[in-house]
């Protein structure tokens, strides 16, 4: 049940008539030599931590130490409840507000699950909890969705990279968005092949995205990129469910992401030396937060 690429993963799942989540669970049992119940319980714990982070972000007064972020999740949520017309729709705004909630909790040094990283921790909880509500999914389906996302992240991490310092934001938020898209497809009853297509469709829209955190903080633009990552994941899942196929195969999109990351200048890879961090306002904020010393 071993796989290294998304193509191998999808092939095993289709051939054996299994869900991607099941292939990941079987892989885990084999490689880590742990019983299924223990593995499942471990993942369910992760889901619980995610749900608590969503709850905190939507109900508590969250503010980061720097003061840069916090409160937007509640703002979006209130707008969603009260606006006479929603331009993008309540499902997208649910995903966006929840992704923002978790990301804001992270920025405030709260407890989150890195998926695949802390900088991208809002996307998967935002997309999965929203899809579950929409689809009426049970708890097992939600836990399974995390395994599906994990399987995709596993392929990306082992063939490319998932750290902003190594590959830019495309490696973090891009990977998380692709993982979430595949997970939502499985939740909605799509095939493993469709999950694979959703990965490609989501990730190609994140290619080239640089990591340029203002003052080096995981706040601006990270929180908003989490919000939009969740939105892209939902739309990519819908496109894949409609039967849209990526012209470039999924593993080649992942390969392109890796190469783009290698070509990306260091100033745009989590050093806070370029991009939004280097704008006049970004610089001014850095001086305000850390003083003139830096």
């Amino acid at each position, binding site marked *: 049940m071993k796989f*290294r690429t998304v193509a191998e993963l999808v092939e095993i799942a289709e051939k054996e008539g299994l869900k991607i989540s099941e292939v*990941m669970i079987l*892989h*885990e049992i084999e*490689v*880590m030599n742990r019983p299924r119940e223990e*593995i499942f319980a471990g*993942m369910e*714990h*992760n889901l619980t931590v995610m749900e608590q982070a969503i709850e905190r972000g939507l109900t508590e007064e969250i503010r*980061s130490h*720097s003061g840069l972020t916090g409160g937007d999740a509640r703002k979006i949520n209130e707008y969603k409840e009260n606006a006479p017309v929603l331009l993008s729709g309540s499902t997208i705004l649910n995903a966006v507000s929840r992704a923002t909630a978790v990301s804001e909790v*992270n*920025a*405030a*040094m*709260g*407890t*989150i*699950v*890195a*998926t*695949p*990283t*802390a*900088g991208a*921790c809002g996307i*998967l909880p935002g997309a999965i909890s929203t899809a579950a509500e929409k689809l009426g999914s049970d708890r097992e389906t939600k836990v399974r969705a*995390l*395994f599906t*996302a*994990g*399987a995709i*992240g*596993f392929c990306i*991490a*082992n063939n490319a*990279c*998932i*750290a*902003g*310092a*190594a590959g830019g934001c495309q*490696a973090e938020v891009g990977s998380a968005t692709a*993982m979430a898209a595949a997970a939502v497809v499985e939740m909605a009853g799509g095939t493993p092949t469709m999950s694979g297509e959703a990965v490609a469709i989501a990730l190609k829209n994140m290619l080239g995205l640089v990591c340029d*955190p203002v*003052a*080096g*903080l*995981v*706040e601006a633009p990270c929180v908003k990129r989490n919000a939009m990552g969740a939105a892209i994941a939902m739309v990519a899942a819908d496109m894949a469910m409609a039967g849209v196929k990526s012209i470039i195969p999924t593993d080649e999109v992942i390969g392109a992401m890796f190469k783009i990351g290698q070509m990306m200048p*260091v100033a745009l*890879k*989590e*050093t*806070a*030396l370029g991009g939004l961090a280097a704008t006049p306002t970004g610089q001014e904020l850095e001086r305000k*937060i*850390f003083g003139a010393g*830096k």
Partner: protein
Amino acid sequence: MKYRTVFDIIGPVMIGPSSSHTAGAARIGRAARTIFGRKPKRSVITLYGSFAQTYRGHGTDVAIAGGLLDFDTFDKRIVNALEIAKEEGIEITFVESDEVPDHPNTARIYLEDEQGSVEVVGISIGGGKMEIVELNGFQLSLSGNDPVLLVLHQDQYGAVAKVASVLAEHEINIAFMQVSRKEKGSQALMSIETDQPVEMEVQHKIGNLPGIHAVMIL
């Protein structure tokens, strides 16, 4: 494969804000503490690359201090680790290096007390995963996934055989082993990943063999 389990991807549960700069950093600090084997008195932490540029924003300094205090990635005390370290009498100095490292997220951790010192270099490779790439000047590659027995010894014939036979006596299987030395006849380091845990008794037995300088478990 750098990432072996699904929990490397969906996880760890951690205190924000950065898996590489906070959780990974805490794990490097904790690995250094584990190798040292006790609470250090003094510590010098040199940060390179992205660690050096953004450590204050990400709480990398706080996280490494938390690791030195033996805190896990989800331990809420990490937030106050610098103050706690001070209360516990651990003196920590941070140095920002502008040297260009092989990996963008690199930390060098020197720990000491009256009994001795240890120097560990760790890299944070993303998603909270880390690797120890250097110990007391010896190159190595440890993920911290499996228990690793580290043996500092005199570079001479029979050292590996002696350690291996103690492990065999206790029915401990070697999964992976690496031996490195600085120069012929000087000090050398064995790093041994084992399938079974190496109990204290076995560690002492190895430590008492001739030509063995130190035994550590990571």
